[in-house]
């Protein structure tokens, strides 16, 4: 290191020294401006291939296609549909169950407690964070509760839920709320805390009070953090639900997607297990890359708050 430094120092001296001595005052130069019209419009629309390469959806579809092809090749080479069915077989089972209504039915059964729990979790998180930003004791309460319950896996709460609410939707909703609430509350609070002081002051300058202030200044200003909280919450809810269904299976009439997978496994129907998992993945991809993505491009990206 030391050797390098001296070597560098000497090199720099060699470069600098002679220049100081050699170059005298140089003449002033002024130029007529070049004609810039050669490059066409200063602003132009990108060509079609350029835009194609910039399109997220297309790039991601390419990745998916690559994964599917890898899967197919590997499964064919393995040639054991009990362990690892091919993509085509999985797709055939998937389409078959989709058309005869089984999968649609199962998905609907799963989505009901999911949406209920997700909405409930968000609502409670909103309530808790509102209290937390309006008073110091509120913030202390939220921080303590989050520190206590956030690390607690939803599945660990499930036995308790079963005791309290019995086998069925209320138990599912309870554990989903538990998994959504703390994640969303935590990121919303972080978002509120990092709203720039100047923005808060100008909001108050307009004469905005409590509710208007939260609605028109704090929530939009914290929206990037809130949105990422909603995404994390969604993933947690989805995971919790499938896991819970796998653990206690059917609720009264018909089971959800987790139960579908569980059932197929006990019948050693591996293609159907894959079809069930595929459904979970497809719904997850749809929510992430269509719903959340379009919210993102319409809000935080358009506003330049996130790139």
């Amino acid at each position: 290191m030391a050797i390098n430094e001296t070597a560098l120092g000497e090199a720099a001296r060699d470069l600098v020294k002679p220049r100081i001595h050699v170059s005298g005052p140089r003449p002033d130069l002024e130029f007529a401006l070049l004609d810039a019209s050669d490059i066409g419009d200063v602003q132009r629309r990108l060509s079609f291939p350029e835009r194609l390469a910039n399109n997220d959806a297309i790039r991601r579809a390419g990745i998916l296609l690559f994964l599917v092809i890898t899967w197919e090749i590997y499964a064919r080479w393995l040639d054991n549909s009990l362990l690892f069915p091919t993509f085509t077989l999985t797709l055939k089972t998937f389409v078959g169950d989709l058309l005869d209504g089984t999968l649609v039915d199962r998905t609907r059964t799963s989505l009901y407690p999911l949406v209920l729990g997700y909405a409930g979790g968000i609502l409670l998180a909103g309530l808790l964070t509102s209290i937390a930003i309006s008073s110091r004791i509120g913030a202390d309460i939220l921080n303590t509760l989050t520190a206590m319950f956030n690390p607690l896996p939803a599945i660990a709460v499930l036995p308790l839920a079963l005791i309290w609410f019995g086998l069925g939707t209320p138990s599912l909703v309870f554990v989903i709320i538990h998994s959504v609430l703390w994640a969303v509350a935590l990121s919303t609070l972080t978002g509120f805390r990092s709203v720039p002081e100047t923005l808060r002051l100008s909001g108050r300058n307009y004469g905005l009070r409590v509710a208007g202030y939260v609605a028109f200044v704090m929530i939009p200003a914290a929206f990037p953090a809130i949105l990422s909280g909603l995404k994390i919450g969604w993933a947690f809810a989805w995971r919790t639900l499938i896991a819970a269904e796998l653990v206690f299976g059917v609720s009264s009439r018909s089971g959800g997607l987790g139960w579908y997978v569980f059932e197929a496994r006990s019948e050693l129907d591996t293609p159907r297990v894959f079809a069930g998992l595929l459904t979970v993945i497809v719904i997850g991809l749809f929510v992430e890359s269509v719903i959340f993505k379009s919210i993102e491009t319409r809000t935080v990206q358009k506003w330049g708050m996130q790139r």
Partner: protein
Amino acid sequence: MESSSSGLVQVRNVTLQYKTTDHLVTATYKVSCTVQHGDRYVILGPSGCGKSTLLKAIGGFIRPVGGSIVVNGHEIREPGPDRMMVFQEFEQLMPWKTVLQNVMFPMQVAKKYTRSEVRDRALSAIDKVSLSKFAKVYPHMLSGGMKMRVAIARAMALEPDVLLMDEPFAALDALTRRKMQEELLSLWDQLRFTMLFVTHSIEEAIVVGSRILILSPHPGRVRAELEAGALSYAEVDSPAFGVLSKRIHTLLFEDEPKHAPEPASAAAGSH
């Protein structure tokens, strides 16, 4: 200092303090001043002397520990759209609103104008700061100087009793700053609003101000109040500008003789 009860903004013996978890910081001590209608009133002082704090107190964001602030006959208790504030930072614009929406929003909240009036006033304010082409653009696509112009347009569209500006041009490059100062002055020439302008630059104070309040270093106390109405950038090289500038320099730094490059007699000679 005249103690007449006239004057748009009357600051009387205002002491301002910050309480942190383990300190009590006195920002200004018994500051008094009076701002008349149409004043370009500059608050000048070294960094950290409590200029922003004083402006925030007039804005209603901080309660004085002692003394009183009266604007337009009312004692200040809370922030309000009659005292619009322009901050030093660029992030005062709401990134989720376009330029036009940003200018319209405070007028919508204040409910002072009808819906069509709000739009017309916003468009004309944006036109006055020559940003009509950018009305539909979001703030992140604007340069720093343009954001500042939007903030000024937003504040003026509401016709506040007084415009509070906290080093609005300090974060700009020198060329843009000078252009903005000239634009602000020509706006003032058209509209004759009252403004309180905080700066730590002597040159800016003389160019922008019609009257200059000089605060001492921390804690800020009133050192002097000077007349500076006639001097603009055209006179930067004139003797009068130099004399005033030296005088202010002396007033600001005479307690620290090491930093005063000119002997005090130069300023004293101008009396």
